[in-house]
Structure formats: structure tokens, C-alpha cells
């Protein structure tokens, strides 16, 4: 984000709210990585660092009763939808106090109270499911919106195609957010995808498609706002491609030998959260002290969540066998010698 005032910017509250979400994500991510590197915790971790502005961009447009679906790389989306820090941390660490009692884990965060409905580890699979939430709202006659997040790589899988087409044909209130970080695991988008812009694919369904710089919070906010408003008002679905970059590769421990060093260096130098922070201050939307205080509060909340999670027990052994079915679990688990 260039350091000039933006006539297209939202009001100050919204600007700060976006920053708050971005910072929460960034600080959370930093804590995860620090604790992972120091060996305090161990888990498969997909860092969303670099992609904060996208979730913040839709986050401020959504109500609590709107639905969000996301993927294994979902921490930013979970936080943008308001999943509470304590339960989120506890779930990432596999504790009984986690959102899912430690049974789902980072790839399967669910917190209906915040509207975070499904996190899936199967590339593209959340897209058809998101349509179901949209359909529920449509059938109920509410104006709830569903936002489903996925990567650039996901746009090559069958579920994307089927889901996009059905949403268009049924005019579902769903916003399809393709967080294009230019890579799917170790493969650059150009080696896997027949188009340069994922948003070009929207036309194949008669759906509006738009590409936005996902590192520009103001532009992203506007595009997301239009898409959410279209969905909310019965105008049907939109495909938003928000272009960004994964700072830390596919997952922690990734050697990143397939990412050109300069490319990554440049992306990190243009850290969108850092630039946005500076922009807020330089354009008088906030003072350094204000933002620092916000960050302090967030840090304290993360401290608290980490402590809560680290001090929480693992799930009781009996939990292995619960929640498989709603009723009569024992009978359903029958047929085991062990």
C-alpha cells in the first residue's frame, strides 16, 4: 500500500477494525512459529502470514450469523470470523478445551457460535459445502452471506467447478474467495493453471469475477464489500481473486527451494500489515501509540490463550469413541475385536 491517502478508503473505525484483525493474525502466527521453532509445541502448521489483509477485508463486512468455510491454511480466516483465541489455540494444540475438544485439529476448526462452520483439509471440498450454507439462507429467506476461502491451486479441482456452477445456477448468496498466493504446495500457479487470473474462470459460470490486490487492504475491503452486498441483496455469487503471497512456504519446515529467493524477499519487504500500519499512521487515521496499545492488548490476549491451551489437558481417552454418531454410539461401534 502506497503511503498516500486513499479516497476509496472506508471510515476510520473500519480501517482500525481491519488493522486489529490483521494484527491478531500476524501476532498469532508469529507466536505459533516462535513456539514451533523453539520446540515448545509440535504440530503441522500452515502459516497464513502474508495473507492477513484478505480475511480482514471480508471480516469487517460479515455479521456473526454469516457463514465462513475455509481450509487447512485457515488461521487468518478463523480469527477474522471471530473464533475465540483460547479455544482456537487449545484446538491447535489438541486439547480438551479446544473448539472441537482436540479431536479436529488445525485442519478442521469449527466454531458455529462464530459462524466458522467448516475447515477442510481436502483441496476444493469446502466449495460445494459452502453452497449448502448459502442454500440454507436462501430457503430460510434470511440475508445471511457465506464466504468460502480456498487457494489458487484449488481452482483446478473438480469440486471448484461443480460448486461454482451450482452457485451460479441457483444464484446462491456465496462469495468465493480465492486467496491466490501463487503456489499450491511446491508448484507455481503458472505450471498448473490454464489462465493467468483465477477470476477469468467466473465467466465460465456466468458469474461476476474480479481480481484484487489482496495486499491492499482498502481495495480488498471495497471488492469484498461489493461481493458481500451482492450476495446479501439476492444478487447471487461472486468470485473474488485476491492476489497475495505465502511468506513461509506451504507448511512449517518447507525448504522453499522452489520459491525464487528474490521473489520471497520482495514480498516480505512489502509486508502488507507493516505497510498498512505505516499508512494508517502517516495518513492520520491512528497514532503510533494507539496501534502499539492495540498490539499490546492483542499480545496479552495471545499470552492468555497460549497459557490456557498449554495448561489444558488432552482429551479424555473415552473421547476417541464419542461423536462418531449422535445416538447409541456403542452399538454403532460394534464389530471390533480389540
Amino acid at each position, binding site marked *: 500500500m502506497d503511503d498516500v491517502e486513499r479516497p476509496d478508503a472506508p471510515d476510520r473505525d473500519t480501517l482500525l477494525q481491519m488493522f486489529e484483525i490483521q494484527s491478531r493474525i500476524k501476532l498469532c502466527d508469529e507466536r505459533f512459529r516462535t513456539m514451533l521453532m523453539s520446540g515448545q509445541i509440535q504440530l503441522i502448521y500452515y502459516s497464513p502470514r502474508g495473507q492477513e489483509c484478505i480475511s480482514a477485508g471480508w471480516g469487517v463486512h460479515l455479521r456473526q450469523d454469516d457463514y465462513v468455510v475455509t481450509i487447512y491454511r485457515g488461521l487468518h480466516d478463523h480469527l477474522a470470523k471471530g473464533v475465540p483465541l483460547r479455544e482456537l489455540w487449545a484446538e491447535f494444540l489438541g486439547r480438551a478445551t479446544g473448539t472441537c475438544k482436540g479431536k479436529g485439529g488445525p485442519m478442521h476448526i469449527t466454531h458455529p457460535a462464530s459462524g466458522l462452520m467448516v475447515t477442510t483439509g481436502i483441496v476444493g*471440498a469446502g466449495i460445494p*459445502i459452502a453452497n449448502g450454507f448459502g442454500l440454507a439462507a436462501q430457503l430460510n429467506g434470511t440475508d445471511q452471506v457465506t464466504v468460502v476461502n480456498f487457494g489458487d491451486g484449488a481452482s483446478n479441482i473438480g469440486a471448484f467447478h461443480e460448486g461454482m*456452477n451450482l452457485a451460479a445456477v441457483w444464484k446462491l448468496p456465496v462469495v468465493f474467495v480465492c486467496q491466490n498466493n501463487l503456489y499450491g504446495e511446491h508448484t507455481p500457479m503458472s505450471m498448473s493453471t490454464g489462465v493467468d487470473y483465477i477470476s477469468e474462470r467466473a465467466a465460465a459460470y456466468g458469474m461476476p469475477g474480479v481480481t484484487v490486490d489482496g495486499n491492499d487492504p482498502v481495495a480488498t475491503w471495497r471488492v469484498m464489500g461489493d461481493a458481500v452486498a451482492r450476495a446479501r441483496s439476492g444478487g447471487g455469487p461472486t468470485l473474488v481473486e485476491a492476489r497475495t503471497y505465502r511468506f513461509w512456504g506451504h507448511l512449517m519446515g518447507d525448504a522453499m527451494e522452489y520459491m525464487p529467493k528474490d521473489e520471497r524477499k520482495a514480498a516480505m519487504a512489502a509486508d502488507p500489515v507493516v505497510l498498512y500500519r505505516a499508512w494508517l499512521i502517516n495518513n492520520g487515521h491512528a497514532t503510533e501509540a494507539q496501534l502499539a496499545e492495540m498490539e499490546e492488548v492483542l499480545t496479552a490476549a495471545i499470552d492468555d490463550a497460549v497459557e490456557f491451551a498449554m495448561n489444558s489437558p488432552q482429551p479424555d481417552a473415552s473421547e476417541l469413541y464419542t*461423536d462418531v454418531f449422535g445416538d447409541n454410539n456403542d452399538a454403532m461401534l460394534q464389530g471390533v475385536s480389540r
Partner: protein
Amino acid sequence: MSEPRIMLTAMAINEALDIAMTIDPKVFLLGEDIAEPSGGVYKVTNGLSTKHGLHRVRKTPISEQAIIGAAIGAAIAGFRPVAEIMIMDFLAVCLDQVTNHAAKIRYMSGGQTTVPMVIRTSAGAGRGFGAQHSELLEAFAVHSPGMKVAVPSTPADAKGLLLTAIFDDDPVLFVEQMMMYWDKTYAGHVPEGDVRVPFGKAATRREGSDVTLISYGRQMYDCLAAADALAVDGVSCEVIDLRTLVPWDEAAVMASVGRTSRAVVVHEAVTRCGFGAELSSRIHEELFGQLSAPVQRVGGANTPVPYASNLEADFLPQVSDILLAVRRTQG
């Protein structure tokens, strides 16, 4: 007492769907070609879109992943969707939504989100449809913890089990053998109204003392036919119809086989790694030492389903195969 209401299987299923939609606005249907004017390729959903509206009887594109996905999301959000996968073999194009999502979501969310949906699917050989439109794949769902599985054999069960499935809070795979839809051989009395058949309760279709034939779906009739034939020779067969496979009625099976000391399990699916293997294993595990003969399995051949009518007939488990299997238990 009122007259028996004799119905065909397809009509019984239609009635269950109609009743469910009438009593609960959260029930809706989705699938390919299920709406009027055609009312489904097998006419099973005939009339329902006219009565309940196209918003509740929803025709879809040929997009099975989108169908199951939409059902999952709507189910989590409080609906009770009934999705149709036209033919069971097509489960293979959307299995990810079924086994990785519908089945696992309750567990992965620690019980926060449930997926009260039904996947209705028609199945089975005997129509000359060939290798890709004739399979019974219930074993896939049984092997996927989180899925319940029902395979009705009578019109009354088709209706009663489907109603139970729709109002169950877990995802249910509901298998309809297409040979039974409109064939009068399979017609039967169906009680009026919202009469439900519970899951996990087998029906004893015939009592007997020498051997227990355990089956489900259309092959139950082959068991009855075999029992008739064997009765002539003085062999008394008990015929147990499981009705649901997850859960299945272990108590009833063990009690019966405990008495007869002999069992034959019969299903249409390919024998190898079919549900019959699970049944056989369980019976041996529970009743070892009480059995007079090993449990016999009769199932589809371990081959794809062939096209030529003579081969297709041979693929299917035959009454003669059951007779042979029973003879082996008499050894």
C-alpha cells in the same frame, strides 16, 4: 381392521418423501432430474415437485460433488436434505464429500456440527446396464465410520426406514435396489402415515431351526426361496433381514445362529471384502465352539458386472448358490 395397502417399492419411497416434506419444512430433496415434469428417471419422486414446489424438490446439474456438498452445508445449517445419487456406482465421483465430509464432520467438530442428511441411491445388477451402473457398494460406507447404512427389502421397510433416516441426526446411505422399484413381485402392505422402522432392528422373515440365512435388500427374497426349497428336503431355515447395516442387529443374529448353529450370509455386492465378511467374522468371533459349520458367504462374483444377460445372471448370487451353501453347512 383395514384392508392391506399393497404398494410397490417406488411408491412407498415416494410416500415417505412426501410425508417427511409435509411434516417438516426443513426436509428438501435434491438430485438430477428429480423434479416434474419427469419426476425422476425411475419416477420415484413423481409428483413431489408439483406438490411441494421446485424450491424443495431441486433439480441439479450433473455434479454429484455439488449435490452432496450442498446437502452437507444445508444439513449443518439445520435442514434435513435428501440427496439422490441416481445410481450407486456414481458414489465414486463424490465419495470425498460422503466419506471425508458427511461422515467425519460430527467427529471432527467434536460434536458441534451434525449432518442430518440422507443419500438415496438406486443400485443393483439385473437390468443389463453393464459394469458401471450395477454395483452394490454399501461396504464402502460401512467401512467409513460416521455413516449409517440402510438397505430395505420390503415396501413397508423402504418407507419406514427412509422416514427414520430423514429424521436421524446422522448421515445415512439409503440403498434402493432398482429391480424392486416397480416389480409387483416385491409389492407389499405399507402402513399409512408417519410409521417409522427403527435402525438396528433386524426382522425375522421366517423362523427355522437348522440354519440361519442372513441377508438384506433384494437378496432376502432369494433366501426365502431357498428356504422354501430346503423345507421340502426337511431343512428348516430361519431368514433374518438386517434392514440396516450400520447399526446392525448383532443381538438378533447371534441369538438365531446360537440356536441354529449354522449361518449363511447373502448379499448382492462382490463377495470379497463385502459386508458378508464382516458378518461372518463377527459370528465366528462370538459363537466359536457353538457352530456346527463355518459361516458361508454367498455374494456377487469377484468380477465387474458383465453385460451379456447370461453372465449378468451368473454374476448375481443365485438361489442355487444359497442351496449349495446351506448344504455345505449340513456337511
